[in-house]
């Protein structure tokens, strides 16, 4: 039966790299499946919530898509998801995973194929217990930043010597780095996505402060590593996936991605790829118009994820292993290598609030 997928993602402006990887990973899976029944329309949300809503309306009302996907940012997803599920459409998230949608605001039609936002931060909290007693933690001052530090603290048992919220979009971190130097912390956890993280790491490397830095995988994913360069080497970060993960599905994915796009896949590419695989697996067995059947198939997660094992929790967010990775240089490329496992079969803290 035909399935029409509407992908809304960020393809212009500063955040475009993430959307491009999401799209490329997603389309790789679609292409490899060669399923004529599945069609995808893609549009650019320019990282604006209003734009995303408009596109969602257009896709639902005009293009008659069955499934929406692709949004990178929590605030855009928060704008689109309620309307989409209210109009009876599936939403499969490739990245954004704000807490409300995992808890009280969960919906039978809403799946997250990536993680719950807190997962990677929780993993670093867990990992930090191994070697650190006093942590300095910082994140931008917005909901995802707060969730991040909350997630970290949920598992970190040592002392948090300082908890700092920086301005969203800040580019100079001298003041924060000076505080790190003075704090006596033995480790730094930072969640600074995109350009903020690049700036922080470069400045940190120049500062002469030696405290080890760690963070969630998005701050050190393949799309930004080349821009940070040497400054990122040795940094520990968390991820539910890494390109060196040793399993068949992952090898296939990484090789196919490299062959198709001539670059290493980032975590966003993998997430796009998996979201597509998941939809394809359900489409092969059920008609998307039969909502209940289709949902049941989605829930089975019957596909080979490059992550290895993967299943859904009651709130339709993943239960999966979260790894600790280290930034290394392989030849000329900066990339991540798995150095440990923080959690196995890890769900999230909000599933208990989800009443479906």
């Amino acid at each position, binding site marked *: 039966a035909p399935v029409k997928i509407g992908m809304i993602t960020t*393809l*212009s*402006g500063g955040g475009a790299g993430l959307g491009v990887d999401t799209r490329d990973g997603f389309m790789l899976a679609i292409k490899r499946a060669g399923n004529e029944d599945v069609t995808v329309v893609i*549009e*650019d949300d*320019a990282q*604006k*919530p*209003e734009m995303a*809503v*408009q*596109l969602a*309306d*257009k896709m639902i*009302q*005009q293009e008659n898509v069955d499934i929406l996907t692709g949004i990178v940012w*929590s*605030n855009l997803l*928060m*704008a689109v998801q*309620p*309307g989409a599920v*209210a109009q009876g459409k599936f939403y499969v998230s490739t990245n954004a995973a*704000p807490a*409300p949608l995992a808890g009280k605001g969960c919906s039978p039609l809403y799946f997250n194929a990536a993680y719950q936002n807190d997962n990677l931060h929780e993993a670093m909290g867990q990992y930090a217990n191994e070697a650190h007693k006093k942590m300095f933690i910082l994140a931008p*001052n*917005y*909901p*995802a930043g*707060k969730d991040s530090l909350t997630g970290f603290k949920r598992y970190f048992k040592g002392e948090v010597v300082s908890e700092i*919220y920086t*301005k*969203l979009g800040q580019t100079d971190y001298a003041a924060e780095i000076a505080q790190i130097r003075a704090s006596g912390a033995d480790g730094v956890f930072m969640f600074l996505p995109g350009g903020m993280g690049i700036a922080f790491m470069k400045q940190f490397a120049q500062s002469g402060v030696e405290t080890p830095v760690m963070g969630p995988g998005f701050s050190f994913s393949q799309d930004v590593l080349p821009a940070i360069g040497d400054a990122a080497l040795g940094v520990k970060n968390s991820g539910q996936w890494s390109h060196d993960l040793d399993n068949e599905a992952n090898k296939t994915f990484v090789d196919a991605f490299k062959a198709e796009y001539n670059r290493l896949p980032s975590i966003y590419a993998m997430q796009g790829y998996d979201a597509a695989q998941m939809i394809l697996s359900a489409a092969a067995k059920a008609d998307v118009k039969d909502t209940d059947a289709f949902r049941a198939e989605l829930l089975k997660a019957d596909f080979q994820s490059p992550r290895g094992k993967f299943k859904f929790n009651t709130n339709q967010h993943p239960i999966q292993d979260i790894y600790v990775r280290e930034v290394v240089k392989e030849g000329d490329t900066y990339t991540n290598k798995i150095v440990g496992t923080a959690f196995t079969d890890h769900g999230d803290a909000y599933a208990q609030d989800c009443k479906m």
Partner: protein
Amino acid sequence: MISREWTVNAALALALLAAAIAAEAAGQVFYITLATRIAILGLAATGLNLALGLGGLVSFGHAVFFGIGGYAAGILGSHAFSGDPMIFGLEGSNSMPLIWLVAALAAAVAGVVIGVISIRTSGVYFIMITLAFAQMLYYFAISWPAYGGEDGLSIFVRNAFPGMNTMKPLSFFLISFGALMAGIAILAVLRGSRFGSALDVVRQNEVRAAAVGINPFPVKLTAFVLSAMITAVAGALYADLNRFVSPSMMSWHMSGELIVLIILGGTGRLFGPMAGAALFVLIEHNLGELTERWQFFLGLILLVTVLFARGGVLGFLAGKVRHG
């Protein structure tokens, strides 16, 4: 006397109305949504037009009032939905007229505060200080956890309007369209009135205004506040249209876009903002389908418009403005 401009204006308004009705007839719901968006953005820019077009107050922070309106709808609506009381134990409400009133009053308060400080400055300083206030509130909204911060606030059920089912796209369009027409009518009356004359002379030459006994400050402040109120009502409608409100409604991009709408349509023209909104929304909608690089071409189109099509859409359709 029916001038060419009025013929064009009437044609534009009827075209928008007809487009929505035709879309309803053809079952093309999305086009109603587009028409609604045009009406609402047109209203927001009409509000700004009072300050900017008539009063020469180039506010680069009007998105703040748009956002305040949006949050009025979001906050009142979500409290009405959840049944939790707000501060001071006030009840939420899902009644649009009440929400609009609250939006306008909140914007008026903000407008007075911002205006009293900003209007003392002029020219570029004014542009920048309004931008600064907008940035201030923008950062506040981003980090203010109670109503979602940067994630924004969803309105699960569109607020209600007496006697209409607002969830029906055409009904909501008609409400928005009515609001737009009312906004334009308010501007038309103001412009022709003594207040409008005073505002106009203050824009052209403040020294002269003062020398004939018209104190520029209260005139400008009044225009600024009225303008904020209209834009706030548009913001409330916009939140209801998207069923969502977030700080991005207050971003400087939004302020810039409101200015773009006015210039695109024709500065100082009554129907300019609506014409500009129509053009902008259509360009955005169609370019996005054609190419991923749509922003590049949008830039080019805007550039060509400012450089070569002075007077915008209305200048093109209805000729140069006549002053008198």
